[in-house]
């Protein structure tokens, strides 16, 4: 409710309900009360309260933003004016689209924006109150203010730690076998780094150069979350994580050169069960006849001195602002995380023969990331404020280049964890997570959100069904957000979802009988889809109530239909 406190009091700005709405409902209720006397249905079809009272007293009605009944479906989602470039990003994107002869689509509406930016920045659906507050805000700076607010929210760290845990392979079990205590130490370290917005170059340096116990020094697990701890395998992981390259495609000498920085890394067990110390050992004997020499991936020789950790030497090279890989790979990743697709696609398969769709755009973002001293939030802020990010998802062109060049915001199915969290938030329910294997057992507090789960090994059939990554390889493509029939069955008809809808305390509070039907419909729409219903949708719902279903069934079925809509299942 922090957000609610910040916004100005807005009830004065609410408009009265348009006359057509009053007229329509009056007609329907009159016809209906003549026809039958089923009170529950009457309760649903007729709102006993005067509309204006409900709006100004509760501050809940959003009729001010409700499109007119003649509006097209598209008007719910996009503005009716052509987009205007607002900064360097838009200039570069629109210029490229112009070269391709593709028109960018229109900007998105505030209702689309509030949902999208919550999901993209904190992996969390806005609550009804948050949505209402934003939609009632008339300030011209409202989108910028919301972006700042979200970047400062606590969930930011949880959500991006989930993303980083995919890439850094945070899981207790097979095949990386971090073990539970170590996975949690690793995750805690990632969350803490994100919470204080540690500059990305320092984040990388800690991962690359840490020494110590896997239980106590989180980042040393970077070198343990590997299926194979040979120097060449470490080198592949380093290239993938920090350079966005797949070193298995490199010439052998290049890979061997990078591996040369990791030959003195040592793992040592302790007396404590499953504890392991990871450290640079200057005296570690090199394999007999080993002629490997540390060589940077650009081909220059490294000068290693006996007492200096070779990993430090590599980090100095990698994190130098002039390094051609480090900032570029990260700028491309951040863009893809927010827009759904890299400027170079895939974001972890950068190579000379995989060109950027818009090289000038990538170069600009890279410069901005360096200029911001690797402040990732700053780069996100820049992207989120662009008109390009704020375009609607309704494509004007079906050419593949349109999507590859960001002519619209391509819809994406919600991540598994984000989806179940959203359903739980709507219904007021929680998930039970635990992990019985391997020992020691992991029990997860029931109010912990799924995006904040510390360990990718924690069993959950829902998360597995919805494509949670296995965290084996660190590849972005491990996360599978494609819809399947089995996912559809779960959402449409499983006892899991059914129980949440029928028994979840929040949804029950929303649909309780004494609420006015107008409010129930509005409440469900704002809670689930983060927007008010259109007049056309209200008509459909009222007609269904009139067709004989009791009020509670109509409400549950409405909640069910909204949860199963493409509009809910996708970020758009």
């Amino acid at each position, binding site marked *: 409710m922090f957000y609610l406190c910040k916004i100005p009091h807005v009830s004065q700005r609410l408009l009265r309900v348009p006359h057509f709405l009053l007229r329509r409902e009056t007609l329907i209720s009159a016809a209906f009360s003549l026809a039958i006397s089923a009170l529950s249905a009457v309760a649903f079809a007729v709102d006993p309260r005067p509309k204006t009272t409900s709006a100004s007293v509760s501050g809940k009605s959003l009729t001010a933003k409700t499109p007119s009944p003649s509006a*097209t*479906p*598209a008007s*719910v*989602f996009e503005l009716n004016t052509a987009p205007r470039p607002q900064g360097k990003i838009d200039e570069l994107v629109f210029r490229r689209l112009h070269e391709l002869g593709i028109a960018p689509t229109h900007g998105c509406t505030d209702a689309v924006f509030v949902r999208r930016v919550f999901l993209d920045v904190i992996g969390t659906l806005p609550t009804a109150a948050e949505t209402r507050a934003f939609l009632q805000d008339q300030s011209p700076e409202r989108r910028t203010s919301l972006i700042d607010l979200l970047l400062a929210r606590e969930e930011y760290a949880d959500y991006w730690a989930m993303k980083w845990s995919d890439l850094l392979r945070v899981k207790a079990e*097979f*095949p990386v076998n971090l073990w539970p205590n170590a996975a949690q130490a690793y995750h805690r370290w990632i969350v803490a780094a994100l919470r204080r917005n540690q500059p990305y170059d320092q984040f990388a340096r800690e991962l690359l150069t840490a020494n110590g116990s896997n239980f106590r020094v989180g980042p040393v697990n970077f070198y343990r979350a590997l*299926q*194979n701890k040979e120097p060449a395998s470490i080198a592949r992981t380093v290239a993938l994580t920090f350079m966005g390259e797949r070193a298995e495609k490199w010439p052998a000498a290049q890979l061997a050169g990078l591996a040369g920085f990791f030959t003195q890394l040592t793992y040592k067990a302790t007396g404590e069960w499953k504890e392991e110390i990871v450290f640079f050992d200057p005296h570690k004997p090199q394999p007999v006849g080993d002629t490997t020499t540390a060589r940077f991936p650009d081909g220059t020789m490294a000068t290693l001195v006996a007492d200096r950790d070779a990993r430090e030497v590599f980090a100095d090279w990698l994190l130098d602002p002039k390094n051609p890989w480090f900032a570029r790979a990260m700028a491309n990743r951040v863009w893809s995380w927010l827009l759904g697709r890299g400027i170079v696609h895939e974001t972890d398969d950068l190579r000379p023969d995989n060109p950027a769709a818009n090289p000038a755009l990538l170069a600009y973002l890279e410069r901005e990331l360096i200029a911001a001293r690797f402040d990732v939030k700053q780069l996100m802020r820049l992207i989120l404020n662009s008109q390009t990010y704020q375009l609607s*998802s*309704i*494509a004007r062109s*079906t050419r593949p280049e349109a999507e590859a060049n960001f002519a619209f915001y391509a*819809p994406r*199915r919600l991540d598994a964890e984000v989806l179940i969290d959203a359903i739980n938030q709507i219904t007021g329910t929680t998930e039970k997570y635990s992990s*019985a*294997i391997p020992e020691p057992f992991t029990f997860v507090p029931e109010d912990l959100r799924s995006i904040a789960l510390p360990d990718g090994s924690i069993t959950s*059939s829902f998360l*597995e*069904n919805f*494509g949670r990554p*296995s965290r*084996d*390889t660190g590849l972005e493509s491990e996360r599978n957000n*494609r*819809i*399947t*029939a*089995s*996912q*559809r*069955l*779960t959402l*449409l*008809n*499983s*006892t899991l979802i*059914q129980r949440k809808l029928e028994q979840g305390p929040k949804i029950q509070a929303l649909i309780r009988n004494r609420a006015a039907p107008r409010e129930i419909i509005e409440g469900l729409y704002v809670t689930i889809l983060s927007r008010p219903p*259109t007049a*056309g*949708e209200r008509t*459909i*719902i009222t007609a*269904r109530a009139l067709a004989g*279903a009791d009020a509670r*069934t109509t409400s549950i*079925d*409405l909640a*069910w*239909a*909204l949860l*199963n*809509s*493409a*509009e809910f*299942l*996708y970020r*758009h």
Partner: protein
Amino acid sequence: MNLHHSVDPRLWNLSTELRLLGLSGPPLTRREAIRDGLLGAASLALSGHLASRAAAMSDAALAPLPVTPKAKSVIQIWLWGGPCHLDTFDPKPDAGYDYSGALKTSIPTNVAGIQIGELLPLLAKQADKYSIIRSMTHGINGHETASYTVQTGRASGGRDVFPGTGAVVSLFKGYDAGYKGLLPPYIVLTELQGRFSEAGFLGGRYKPFATGGDPGANRFIVEGVIAQGISDERQRARREFLHQLNTFERAMPSADPRLTALGQCESDAYEMILGDAGKVFDLSQEKDAIRDGYGRNTFGQSCLMARRLVERGVPYVTINYKGWDTHKQHFPIMRRKLPEFDRGLATLLADLAERGLLESTIVMAGGEFGRTPKVLWESPWNGGRSHWGKAFSLLVAGGGFKGGHVVGQTDARGEEVTERPVQPSEVIASVYECLGIDGQAKLPHPEGTDVRAMPAALNHGRRPSRLSEIM
């Protein structure tokens, strides 16, 4: 003629195969090959790399190879906990009370010379349809590790978690192999094991679909397919409601590939919920006499359910049948469970045979190990049996396995295997062969490691042999 140790094995394989194919040297008879334990390796390779190499050498002479797998489906009845071999398929009435306890007698079957436990009278009448392997062995006494070894054929503790047979069959016989059914290719009745990762490194795509619910209940509530308290009429009305309220989809360009995929998934899901595909789970479609025949309990109706699933082409069905970990109260539990097991399985075999499905359906029944032959009379067990990985029994039937045979034997007390020890990997190899799955086919491994479908024998690192006696 055993050339194992004298010749480069690759040469041996090739020459043997060419002989089997009648291409080189005196042709081997099947009997000769079996006697020498050769046919296993050779015929497995027939569908593998050597066959394709040979085919490339001389297309006209070799193609088409007569590889027609008999089995299309597997029903795996998993007796979780480890059933006692002495009280089921390897009775030892002469070992005395300390071994046989209250179950002192064995009963003859419809195959001369084969005796089974006294609590299995219905199975005794079906012995011509199945074979009993009495010499299963791996020596592992922990549930998780023994389950892993029996279901994957591999030793536990390595760096890789291997997929179980169900997941491998789902890989080679499921959607990747042209399976078009709406029913998932690998179904578990009714719950996953929880302590065993069925799919291993193959990942979530090959995990089984667990039905949930209880086939023995009035209505079998299958997770996602059948929702309690929601009539078909309401389902239809809901779907219409969903379509009416699809404002976003109407706003989007109709060709959007994401929405097309979503629409297809919805159609498939409703084919299960309201269409014909989901009707398979409606056991009330079966005659009462048939339902009664299987036994009106969870296991019996699960067997009936499994028959209905393989009838519709599902390649792999597991019945997770719990409650066999009888450390205490062993004999009372046997008296309760074995009649239920007897009725369900015997009816399943008879029903499959009658419908002509047994020829194409492998049925396996067994657990992760056997139980301590010497009854633990002392406190706190008071007549219980513990875990016994050194010797246990497995029933196999159908899909290319012969009935009416016994493979191997144990000593007079059922403690040690004395003849023809059978490793779990041999069973799995044989199952794959019956299904026409190439043992040398590569499994997709996250690291790209070269891993084959066929587990290596535990002891020698060689290819496992096969159950040639009963194939």
